[in-house]
């Protein structure tokens, strides 16, 4: 069980980070979703062994799963959901401006690039 958890967290993190290094915002968005899932899984996994649903008056306290990581995970999921929508809106706006959703170089990189282009014969 724990090994499966670790493998899931590890592979989600690596795929997520690989996607975040892409230029296109829609890939970055998918990367963040996967990384978010990895973090939520890691939080759940950090709460100890699985157990009964931790509902008041329904499970014996010792048999119930640890409810605190579940509360933390739930908060993280809600925040992640809002941010996903915001990133989608950002990608859409960039697409309206430039026709694609690529993350562009910052001003300083563009300036250095222009200088190098001038230096070449």
């Amino acid at each position, binding site marked *: 069980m724990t090994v499966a958890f670790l493998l899931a967290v590890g592979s989600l*993190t690596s795929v*997520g980070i690989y996607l*975040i290094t892409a230029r296109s*915002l829609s890939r*970055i968005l998918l990367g*963040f979703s996967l*990384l*978010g899932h*990895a*973090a*939520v899984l*890691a*939080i759940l*996994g*950090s*709460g100890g062994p699985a157990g009964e649903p931790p509902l008041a008056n329904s499970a014996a306290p010792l048999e119930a799963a640890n409810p*605190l*990581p579940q509360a*933390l995970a739930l*908060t*993280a999921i809600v*925040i992640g959901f*809002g*941010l996903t929508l*915001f*990133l989608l809106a*950002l990608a859409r*706006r*960039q697409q309206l*401006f*430039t026709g694609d959703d690529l*993350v*562009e170089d*910052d*001003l*300083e990189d563009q300036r250095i690039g222009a200088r190098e282009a001038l230096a070449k014969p």
Partner: protein
Amino acid sequence: MTALIAATVVAPLLAAAIGLLLRHRSRVRDGVTLVGLGTAMASSFALLYNVASGQSHAMLVGGWSRELGIVLVADLFAVLVLPVALSIIFIVELFAIGQRRTAWGANPELAGPLLLVLTGGVSLAILTGDLFTLFVAFELILVSSYVLLTHQGQQGQIRAGMTYVVMNLFASALFLLGLAFVYGATGTVNLALLAERIPELSDGARLGIGAWFFVVFGTKAAMFPLFSWLPDSYPTAPTTITAVFAGLLTKIGIYAMIRFHTLTGMDELGPVMLIVAGVTMIVGALGALAQNDVKRILSFHVISQIGYMLMGLGLFSAAGTAGAVLFLIHHMPVKTVLFLVGGLISNHQGTSSLDRSGGLVRSRPVIAVLFAIPALSLAGLPPFSGFVAKLAVISAGIASEEHIIVAVALIAGALTLLSMTKIWTGVFWGEPAEASMSAPARPTSAANRRLMTGATCLAVAGTLTISVFAGELFDLSERAATDLRNPSSYTALTIGTPP
């Protein structure tokens, strides 16, 4: 006391909700915004008064037990930073009302409520006593900052906003993973309990957690080499938004770092922090020298100054931490004022580029004075607050015999003065350039201009007050640093007091 603690967080959020409902009536909206910010600010000053006279308090949200629930802690460090932060936001909102037509751009209806949400996040981040609420507070701040930065939807803002959002989202994801590690290792996210349990971990786990959160908070604080998002995104936003961001956002990262790393006793990370601090100072200052626009120069100085606070923390001595706390208090208003003056300059001339401005010392002497005071303070010249703060950090460095970082700090100070001189000669001396002959892009009425200048004067007066009361503030910073380095007082405050 608990009502005061609650008011600093709840009043802005409540006002944000009311402001959203009444968003179509601009005067009501502005009034609600000012009342919300004013209530939070007044409560924070009352808290400072109470805590400085020896009555620290903690508040249990929702009446849960201390280990499970959310605790808001008003210790000395928190209440020293909180009034400064909230006053800055209040003054910027005054400035923004004066500049309404240009300040918040295309969609001013949303700006007030968003600023209030950001304020609630700032209060929560400063007061919170557990790591997960800190994460939520960071997200509150960041989400409203994402929207404030990009909601005008201009192309440059979207371009810079993408870098900003991606970098900060990545740091947030690392924060969440770090929370999982901390909870897995210790079984709690409460800072006071962490202060007890983290030192008991094996060295590898303990330093791993410390280094992980150094990277997380360091990205928010824009330290080297994680600063690339800052100088690109800040100048694209309207003046008032940049002023709030520059004064507060990176400083909350440093605040969290000071809080977490002193409480959990990460002294072994000190040498790494000092190296990063030195490089951050120099890279920021050199980056500023290469720029040709008031806002971009000031943005690079945000990075450079982070280095000094990191240096104070990295020394891991009581004097160093006190210096970092004092520097934090000095730096927030000074940086905000400089950006507000940058706004006055571009409002007057229609540009903040150095090439296309000049001669402002004759046409607008008031702006020149308003710029000179915080600029000299930023460079660390006596008798301004920057001198006191830098002196505290540097003498702590000498006391710890870290001579290299002291030398680096002095060189960075000289470079800061050089780039302030660059702004001065470019904007204030010389002949008025072409652009300043023409009317500004969007003329503002005389009353609005008076409000903008008045708000800036108020902020300058605030920075001068800090230098007048530097002695008292330094004593308080030393007390705060002693508390920070001695977790038992924080633990007693958070866990030991009756509900």
